[in-house]
């Protein structure tokens, strides 16, 4: 297993959102604009990277029987740091992501990577794993965001693409999130069954 392999697997083969269908809550809730998607992806990647490093470095010290509570405390500490940092430096983004920043704690991807990867590997592969998974999740979020923002608000990163009268506001309302993700998963299944 090369390091490059650890990095790329999170982007395509084991993409956390599209292939493993984890972390759906933030993927549906905050994907109303591309900016939100980028912000969420960055916060998520930062937490995943930090927690993967600490957990892989401490994997021989943490007793097996209390590992889950230990992981949760480590992850929660980093989430709190990101939460405070975003509150201070990006107040607008902080406001629009709202409750979903503290909720990164219960994002199944992070605990899943801790349990499935950082727990068994040393620091360097864990870093690549976290970067790949983080990037994969961010790309997936941005893809969902792009569809929803362009169709729902007629803009992309704030730039107008469609005239406002053509935009279907439903796409940035809750149903749009479900429909977009559902159709994307269906489309990916179709593509996969054709290539396989």
């Amino acid at each position, binding site marked *: 297993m090369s390091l490059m392999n650890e990095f790329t697997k999170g982007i395509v083969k084991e993409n956390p959102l599209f292939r493993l*269908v*984890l972390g*759906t*809550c*933030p993927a*549906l*809730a905050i994907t109303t604009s591309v900016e939100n998607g980028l912000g969420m992806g960055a916060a998520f990647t930062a937490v995943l990277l930090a927690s993967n490093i600490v957990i892989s470095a401490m994997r021989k010290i943490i007793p097996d029987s209390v590992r*889950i*509570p230990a992981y*949760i*405390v480590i992850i*929660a*500490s980093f*989430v*709190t740091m990101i*939460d*405070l940092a975003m509150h201070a430096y990006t107040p607008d983004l902080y406001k629009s992501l709202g*409750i979903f920043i*503290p*909720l990164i*704690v*219960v*994002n*199944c991807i992070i*605990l899943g990577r801790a349990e499935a990867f950082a727990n068994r590997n040393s620091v360097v592969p864990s870093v690549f794993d976290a970067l790949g998974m983080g990037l994969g999740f961010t790309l997936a979020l941005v893809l969902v965001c792009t569809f929803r923002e362009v169709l729902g608000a007629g803009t992309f990163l704030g730039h107008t693409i469609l005239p406002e009268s053509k935009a279907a506001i*439903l796409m940035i*309302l*809750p*149903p*749009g*999130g*479900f*429909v977009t*993700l*559902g*159709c994307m*998963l*269906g*489309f990916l*299944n*179709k593509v996969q*069954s054709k290539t396989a």
Partner: protein
Amino acid sequence: MQDYFIIIVSAVLINNIVLSQFLGICPFVGVSKKLGAALGMGAAVTFVLVLAGGLTWAIQTYMLNPFNIGYLQTIAFILVIASLVQFVEMVIRKFSPALYKSLGVYLPLITTNCAVLGVAILNIQKEFSLLQALVFSLSHAIGFTLALVLMAGIRERLEDADTPKCMRGMPIALVTAALMSMSFLGFSGLV
């Protein structure tokens, strides 16, 4: 009295926790294949959500606020919820083996259910009193159970429907959820 009524109606129907706030999507698509399982999950979540709502409210009011350590909220709440789930699991196993058997599998899953932590944080953000927080938690739990049971009812029929192969499972469940969420949008003028 009217306040409480508004809290209940808006939490159950208008701001339904699953269909419009996107909390607890994982169990919503994961455990909605069978009606019985959906009811079990709903009951377990209701139980934990109300207990956690009260407990986290007390912690915020009597520990975090007086000592000015509000920034520990996330860590404190997730630890409380994780240990509460463990504790509830042990108590139910001891006193009601029958209930434990029916809830058993779903209890540990609740720790990572973002609905529980989400509602606990919302309780604090909205600056509720204890009774309001309990009512808010309970009505969100009812909303969760309602969405889950409706979804399970639809999915049991969907099993027999002739869906395209690539849409089977997760994709069609999400599209179904979209339609449900659209119909719940109709409630938005209610309060």
